């Protein structure tokens, strides 16, 4: 479904963020990217969306190379949810405005019903429709961000640390919501996180990145069986067990 071939991303000033990244995500799959800060994991997502300066390689959707800038039809099939729900919603737009803008841009009909349905789907209800972001909690805002991405009925959702700004109990609710939506709609996810446990919970396959390179690709069963071939992946696995004295 989504294919990346020897992708290179170099930021102005010569900073190489991603080097020779290859990636293949199947239709209906949930694929995880794990890495620490600066590993290039978010840049891969941004490159898929056309938000990063790609200097080599290509991104293919259903076998077709994507043009830059991405056409509007691309964003109807691929949408992104960002990490910080406090920064990704316009502070002076009501939720109604946030949700109606993509509908207007893409010329959707039945906007009223679509907005109400989108709010119901993410478990917020229509009572939230005319509120401002500052009147919502972090978890509620992230639900709005998910509703905004899903209102265009995309097939692929790119999730950039969707729960790392949230409390553990709220994280569980948002992860369950994402899981349910994927099952109901047959969505494809690419989930980026620094938290190995979140990725292991959400994704069947994942890759580990370090310093802009893919160091390993493995399945959830590999991870659960502690079958990591790479030393760096092993250190991440050990770190996820918490602190060990001595």
């Amino acid at each position: 479904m989504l294919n990346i071939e020897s992708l290179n991303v170099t930021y102005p000033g010569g900073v190489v963020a991603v080097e020779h990244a290859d990636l293949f995500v199947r239709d209906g799959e949930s694929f995880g990217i794990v890495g620490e800060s600066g590993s290039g994991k978010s840049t891969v997502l941004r490159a898929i969306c056309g938000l990063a300066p790609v200097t080599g390689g290509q991104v293919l959707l259903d076998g077709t190379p994507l043009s830059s800038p991405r056409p509007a039809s691309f964003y109807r099939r691929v949408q992104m949810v960002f990490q910080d729900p406090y920064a990704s919603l316009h502070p002076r737009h009501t939720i109604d405005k946030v949700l109606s803008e993509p509908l207007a841009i893409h010329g959707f009909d039945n906007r009223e019903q679509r907005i109400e349905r989108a709010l119901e789907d993410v478990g917020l209800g229509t009572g939230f429709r005319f509120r401002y972001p500052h009147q919502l909690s972090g978890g509620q805002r992230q639900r709005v961000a998910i509703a905004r991405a899903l209102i265009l009925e995309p097939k692929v959702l790119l999730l950039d640390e969707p729960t790392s700004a949230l409390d553990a109990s709220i994280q569980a609710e948002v992860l369950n919501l994402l899981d349910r939506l994927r099952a109901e709609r047959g969505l494809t996810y690419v989930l980026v996180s620094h938290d190995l446990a979140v990725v292991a919970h959400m994704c069947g396959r994942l890759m580990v990145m370090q310093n802009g390179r893919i160091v390993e690709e493995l399945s959830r069963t590999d991870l659960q069986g502690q079958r990591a071939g790479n030393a760096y992946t092993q250190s991440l696995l050990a770190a996820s067990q918490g602190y060990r004295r001595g």
Partner: protein
Amino acid sequence: MLEVEDLRVAYPTRRGMTEVVRGVTFSLGQERLGIVGESGSGKSQTGRAILGLTPSPGQVTAKRLEFDGQDLRNATHAQWRKLRGARMSMVMQDPKFSLNPVMTIGAQIVEVARLKRNLSRAVAKTAALDMLAAVQIRDPERVFAAYPHELSGGMGQRAMIAMMLVTEPDLLIADEPTSALDVTVQLEVLGILDRLVTDRGMGLIFISHDLRLVSSFCDRVLVMYAGRVVEEVRADRLHEARHPYTQGLFRCLPTIEGNAGPLPTLERDAEWAI
């Protein structure tokens, strides 16, 4: 070393005073005490109140707030100056906002050492370099001369820990000291704190939202909810916690070993907040 009884922190709002910490009681010896809770539970406010750092117009009251036999409730500015930095210190979450951006790391550590321990310039510099080495910075001379923006997050956090510890305090309050760091760096920083507690007999209050991390690092954990301590457990017995909030908080974390089914969510009971 530290005795806290019925600590309360309140802020004025349009609807009168709102208490964000509501009667916290505990005592601390030479140990690692964890305070865990979600955002808004009052864990950071508790830490700040102990150091007298509650921002105005917040009000702190307590039946007892004693550090090493000294009553902190009505401490004067002069008393606080003698205590803070010298005997009790605080490490904040993000080194980016806690270090002075226009002073070198070395100058900042030397300033603390000279002010709080009355060291001469030369001795203070040696102490600063030793401290930077103690927090496992490989090239102390380079970091000493560097400005905060020239350091990575992990390095900055180590430099800040070095600055807080150069005065050899008896009590260290660490408020989410590793939350801004990568997991592998996080463990190194915890290792440094751990050694300092063991070697110097320091008391440590470790404030964090990360239940799993706290349970693996601390000796004892206070679980806070809505401004109260709902449960106190031994860290290695956290899985036997009795309060439904602690249990819920522990279970809602995804695990690598777990199945892919829905995570148990936390059903909040209005009674917990009473």
